[in-house]
């Protein structure tokens, strides 16, 4: 007898995996150099998921599982191309010494964010995406998973293969770094003015 829809891997793929296409593509676009590369990555992710549906045992939420596949494929691609992700090593600990100067004093503009909601509203999505893309890869992954895609810390930790505490500290540090870049942009646009004292 044929599989009933709920037990049929193809049916489960259509029901649980296919609706995650937007999420996968959005994350891929933020991680890859261009849209073409992002679509290739998502296609590879979906095909791998299709072949692995029999292993899927995560209830109804396929998103963390898919993002794990996508991230692993992303790493494989970076390695295959002998192209390091443009910033930090995968096992980076943010508690250790930072090799990115912008990370060392992340949050240096925080004291000048008098009205964060209003100022953040002034930035369009392209500004936000551009600022995100300047962040180190692992920080970017963390913000994408936790803040954009709204995974909880445990799920993000599972996807990125790091402890929950690392996710929390990366998320906090990542937001600081993002705000720093946005604040610099706001300065350039004349939306804010540097403090006369103690301004960077």
């Amino acid at each position, binding site marked *: 007898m*044929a*599989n*009933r*829809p709920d037990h*049929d891997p*193809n*049916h489960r793929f*259509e*029901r649980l995996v*296919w609706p995650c*296409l*937007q*999420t996968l*593509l*959005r994350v891929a*676009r933020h991680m890859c150099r261009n849209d073409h590369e992002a*679509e290739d990555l*998502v*296609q590879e992710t*979906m*095909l791998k998921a*299709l*072949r692995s549906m029999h292993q899927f045992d995560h209830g109804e939420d396929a998103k963390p599982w898919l993002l794990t596949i996508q991230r692993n494929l992303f790493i494989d691609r970076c390695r295959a191309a002998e192209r390091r992700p443009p910033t930090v090593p995968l096992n980076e600990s943010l508690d250790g010494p930072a090799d990115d100067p912008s990370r060392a004093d992340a949050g240096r503009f*925080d004291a000048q*964010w008098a009205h*964060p*909601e209003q100022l*953040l*509203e002034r*930035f369009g*999505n392209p500004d*936000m*995406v551009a600022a*995100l893309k300047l962040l180190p890869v692992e920080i970017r992954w963390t*913000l994408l998973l*936790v*803040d*954009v*895609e*709204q995974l909880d*810390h445990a799920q993000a930790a599972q996807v990125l293969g790091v402890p929950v*505490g690392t*996710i*929390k*500290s990366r*998320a*906090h540090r990542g*937001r600081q770094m*993002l*705000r720093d870049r946005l604040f610099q942009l706001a300065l350039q646009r004349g939306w804010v003015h540097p403090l006369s004292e103690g301004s960077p």
Partner: protein
Amino acid sequence: MSVDGPNPGPLDRATRRRLARLAADRIDTAGLEQRLRRAIAAERAPVAIRFPFRVWTAWGSLAAAVAVAFVVLILATSRQPDSSLFAAPDELAQLHEDLVQGRIPTVSVASLDEARLAIERAWRDAPELPALPPDQRVTCCCLRQVKGRHVACVHFIYEGTPITVFVAHAKDAPASDLPDEDRLFISRCVANVNMVVAQHRDRWLCFVGELPEIELIQLAQTTLTQPASTTDAPKG
């Protein structure tokens, strides 16, 4: 240093809220979906070919004939011109979805006979509708143009699953180099649905629905083997 705990500071909360709005941006995935569907169809194709052979083994010579025709037809349809109905799986899948969602005008009918009458009233030389299995419930029907060809659509519920059968004249889905006998093949999985295409006498039939592939094949097979008279349809 504060980290992202249950009570992040106001700056972090504001940043989180702003970032969350990025997820509201809809991305056009149409091109990617098409690519994926093609890749997935190719991925699934070997399985689709194996299934009918296994099932039809017990059907003896009929199964062998159908199976051979199945392979031949796959090869033949790969050379079909774009105007052929064979080239419109996406459109047919969309039509099925529109019927399921009630997005296109249809004629409400309560039986296959009523559907036949309604279709024959609008299309005098309509191809004969297939004899559906007894445990189906026909709900509506309509006529559509697909790739410039008339297609009769009959929507029914089979074992709780919405199915649409599209029927056209075989000449509108040319397979001229094939012998004139029953043929059946699985086209592909498009969107959320499976699709089985059959060519029977002078009719072209396409069954679309969320049934597992093998069940959809069996359903199509039933319509090919069941005598048309079992539907006690009045002929005009």
